[in-house]
């Protein structure tokens, strides 16, 4: 039985993902995600009581360094890839 991903959830996921989905894409996303979650739910069979979650394999600690600039100013090079730029700045639509 495929997990039911309702329209409201897909709408919410679309907002979180910053994606605009066509009606067809929404339907497909609901079906695909439902199938995938059905499968992923297999994890729930495992008893993980008391297991410490790990994100990195090696115990990572914060790596600190002095805040010293080592590279040259690459501002112009960085702006080369901007879809729109002006006066050494990125151009965005009005945000107000």
């Amino acid at each position, binding site marked *: 039985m495929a997990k039911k991903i309702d329209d409201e959830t897909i709408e919410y996921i679309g907002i979180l993902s910053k994606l605009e989905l066509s009606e067809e894409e929404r339907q497909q996303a609901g079906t695909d995600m439902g199938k995938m979650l059905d499968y992923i739910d297999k994890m729930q069979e495992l008893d*993980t009581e008391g297991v410490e979650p790990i994100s990195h394999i*090696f115990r990572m600690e914060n790596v600190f360094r002095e805040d010293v600039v080592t590279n040259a100013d690459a501002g112009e090079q960085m702006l*080369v890839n901007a879809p729109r730029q002006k006066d050494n700045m990125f151009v965005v639509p009005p945000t107000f």
Partner: protein
Amino acid sequence: MNILSMTAVELSRAILAGRVTAVDAMEAVFDRMESLEEKVHAYITADREAAIRRAQAVQERIERKELTGLLAGVPVAVKDNICTEGILTTCASKMLSGFVPAYSAEAVYNLEKAGAVLIGKTNMDEFAMGSTTETSAYGVTKNPRNYDHVPGGSSGGSAAAVAAKECFFALGSDTGGSIRQPAGFCGVVGMKPTYGTVSRYGLVAYASSLDQIGPLTQDVTDCATVLEILASQDAKDSTSISRDDTDFSTALVKDVTGMRIGIPRDYLGNGVDSDVRNRILAAADVLQKKGATVEEFDLKLVEYAIPAYYTIASAEASSNLERFDGIKYGYRAKDYDGLHNLYKKSRSEGFGAEVKRRIMLGAFVLSSGYYDAYYLKALKVKALVKKAFDDAFSRYDLIMGPVAPTTAPKLGESLRDPLKMYLSDIYTISANLAGLPAICVPCGEDSKGLPVGLQLIGDCFQEKKLLRAAYTYEQSRKETCGDARAI
């Protein structure tokens, strides 16, 4: 002298001895591409004139004795999610269709320091999400061994370029098997080192806690040599680690006497092609004859690794790919209404279906209400998978099995059912979850003539054991079947 029949190590020796030039080698690569690239399509970007200019510059430095490195003058292909200064880096996505990085990845920098010369950038699944190189926005790559079949993925272009001799070696990235599986499908050597061995600086992130860069090569000697050059602790990647045992080529010894090798029963069980199973058992025989002990054992939790992997990888992808918003670089939609609409439209038009699928799954498993049940649960499963491997490595030096349950599927077959494609990663993803090094070496063909890949997995930092076993197997096989590299 046929330049293309040389390995990377043989070529650099010939170049340093003055028998061939870096320019000759680069010309040979592009001549080869002229006859084959139309069929294989391994590259997204390959500019002959620019590559020849780079080869000329390197050749001059070799002649001035400024460059004497292990890869002096050797042409290399680099996967298109690894940044190359001044050279288009697209991640096989429309999103980065015009992106030209201002810097090179540390791995590329290390290769160039050793004298390697960049040919161009290889095709891949979009943002490395896929197992067939069919999700690329720039067309599919075909398996050089049979054009009706996929090369595997996501480093399919790199594997195909090595197999088709359109390069001497290549770089790939491996998040869930993306170096090893295409290496297996194309019949070349591919290796994912221990997490943190190679700097990820300049690798466009998919799932940062799982991603590693590694080599795809013609043989195990090249693999050890290239990895030796790639490995470095890098202040620009705080997860990279300091190692004093990166002289990997010293492990190229033909001897596995006393080595204990375990084959997980599940790796030869249901769902594995009989041809694949037989080739792996034959490989086990070869290693046993050379003095290793090989036995089957129960590796726990094999079937839980895939759900944990796709949860973690999608979660990290949804976070990592937030940076693509159409502002600082990458694709920007033509029409939009305000800032948020610009983000949404640019992302919706710029990303392909598989990438969107994983971003949405990732956003879901991280969302409040589902975080504990999915993401946190997956991190706990990851801890258990790691422990299962710790137990296994208390009894065995290495774990062996197939790199995938089947040989390369036909083009188009996998895209119809994403879940089925995900399941084909079953033997490779555990190594990423547990941070382990693993290598894939060719071990024969199935009845259709498609390559079968033997995978060896080692404990963290045990690359040398892996390379020694892989080298022993490769050399022993060469004795019985002739040149193991021949297509």
